[in-house]
């Protein structure tokens, strides 16, 4: 029983984080049909903001808000630096500029901060554990679950009930038509990048909370998770991204529990093979995105 509880908590907390990562990526992709390679660096930015503000005497929560704010800011900056100038030219051009921008941010962190890990301030509660039905689990896993439930619900509300969210969904299927109804393109795109940055910021704090330090390459794993989860889930569907995130977490956790120590090192390779199998079966991903839609 304790084992089952442990397993479920692990899947849900990892899946919640994965789902948020994937969601932040797919929000941009859904609207612009463009992949943001610099997405992982938003998590890095959140981490370094925490590190840099740790010297101050600000309360932790203020630092966290600051970190999320910086991630939002850098999300919008990504649009201006890597997307806007080449958006109309080609899909590959944007892939390349965002990849270059990702390298730029990482190397700026290397140059101006340090190649070595830096400590990130975390409240006491992140390192505590509780016992639930006999299963000893870190409190931060529960925080992650709670945060992802709240955020997923908030995103769902935003996308379903607010004019901005509905306009964003409309723009995702047919950008030009949305503009012809008066929805400003720049507002939609900036909102998408801001939302993406917001999700990256929050998930960044939760993610960094697991290890307590930040390095320039911290964004790679979340980026990879987001990539795989969105490909499984179906690239253009927001629910797909969430499903993909939880499924990936289920695969990873199951492998964590079943693989021997020797094989565990290859976990990513096993996960990837499974993903390839899923894609052989459904090349479009599990959930199809909105029907039509051309790129702008």
């Amino acid at each position: 029983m304790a084992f089952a509880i442990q397993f479920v908590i692990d899947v849900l907390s990892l899946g919640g984080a994965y789902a948020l990562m994937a969601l932040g990526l797919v929000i941009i992709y859904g609207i612009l049909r463009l992949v943001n390679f610099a997405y992982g660096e938003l998590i890095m930015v959140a981490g370094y903001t925490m590190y840099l503000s740790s010297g101050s005497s600000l309360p932790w929560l203020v630092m966290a808000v600051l970190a999320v704010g910086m991630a939002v800011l850098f999300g919008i900056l990504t649009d201006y630096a890597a997307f806007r100038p080449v958006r109309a030219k080609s899909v590959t051009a944007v892939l390349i500029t965002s990849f270059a921008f990702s390298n730029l941010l990482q190397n700026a962190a290397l140059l101006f901060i340090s190649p070595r890990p830096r400590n990130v301030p975390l409240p006491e509660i992140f390192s505590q554990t509780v016992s639930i039905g006999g299963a000893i689990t870190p409190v931060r896993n529960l925080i992650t679950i709670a945060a992802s439930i709240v955020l997923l619900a908030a995103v769902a509300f935003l996308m379903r009930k607010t004019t901005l969210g509905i306009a964003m969904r409309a723009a995702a299927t047919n950008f030009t038509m949305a503009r012809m109804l008066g929805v400003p393109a720049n507002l939609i795109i900036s909102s998408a990048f801001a939302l993406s940055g917001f999700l990256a910021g929050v998930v960044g704090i939760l993610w960094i909370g697991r290890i307590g330090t930040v390095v320039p390459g911290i964004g790679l794993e979340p980026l990879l998770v987001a990539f795989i989860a969105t490909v499984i889930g179906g690239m253009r569907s927001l629910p797909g991204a969430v499903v993909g995130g939880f499924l990936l977490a289920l695969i990873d956790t199951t492998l964590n529990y079943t693989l021997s120590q020797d094989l565990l090192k290859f976990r990513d390779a096993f996960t990837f093979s499974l993903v390839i199998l899923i894609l052989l079966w459904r090349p479009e991903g599990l959930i199809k995105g909105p029907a039509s839609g051309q790129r702008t």
Partner: protein
Amino acid sequence: MKHAYLTALILIAVVAALAVGSQLLGIRLYDRIATNLLISLVLVVGLQTFMGNSGLLSFAHIGFMGLGAYTSAVLTIPAQMKGMALPDLYEFMTVLEVSPLLAMLAAGVVAALVAAVVAYPLMRLSDAAAVITSFALLVVLYTVMNNWSALTNGPRTLFGLPKTTDMPIAAVVAAIVIVIALLFKESRTGKLLRASREDEVAAAALGANIPHLRWRAFILAAFIAGVGGALWGHFITSFAPKAFYLKETFLIITMLVIGGANTVTGAVAGTILVTFAYEGLRGTEGALNATAIGAGQVVGLTEIVLALAMIAVMIVKPGGLFPNREIGHILTRTRRKKEIVS
């Protein structure tokens, strides 16, 4: 078709000029830079065979280079050294020892086989999904190289490869790869692929099975990457898996993209240009580190400058320096224009 011969001739002449030029200078450092450049040329032109024809970015290329390097290592490290270099190597492999040339071919074949198996489902994905899974593939190949200690010595440096690559050999391989890339471009597969990039529906109507064509190009690119990896391995003689990861991926993509991914000429031009820029920047970084202010703290400057250059090129000239015509084509056209004028 005639201008394709001219292109091949000119590009091979460039390779020869690089080779002879560095010999004439007679400085060891230049010899090293020239050899590295020629090996990069093999990799970048290899990447061009996939990216230039299919229009899809592949991030996995360097991973296949790594497969090639390790394959050749296992096949060529002298039997008596294997005990030290690869202590956990499987028993039956310890006696293997083949000639470097054969090992290089085997490296290409192994990379191509792995590519054939893993890439088949990936090439059926939509463009964006195919690109991002190629990125995931790079990470997976890296993970495997980092952890399959029996074959790779894990994250530790593997040493003991015979030093069989020198500048002339690198030049010959580079020239051959350039010819292969040009031949592939003009082949039926290459032409259909490029047509599919312009208009997927029309190409499909011509009977082109696009995923299949992409798959072929991907295998060819992986083969060349594997050969390039072996070539590099026998030049550097010791390496660790981290030599086949993001930094190097960024570098070859920069080279290809700045030169122009659609043309072999672009691949060659970009490699030369970025290599010189890279060496210059590295030198500057070193000099800064030697000063009091730098104090060994300057890292990443080179990459920052390259990243900025790449973004600038994408904004100003998204197709790179040679966006669609090979050098031979450009020259014959200007010649013809002149004839008309005179």
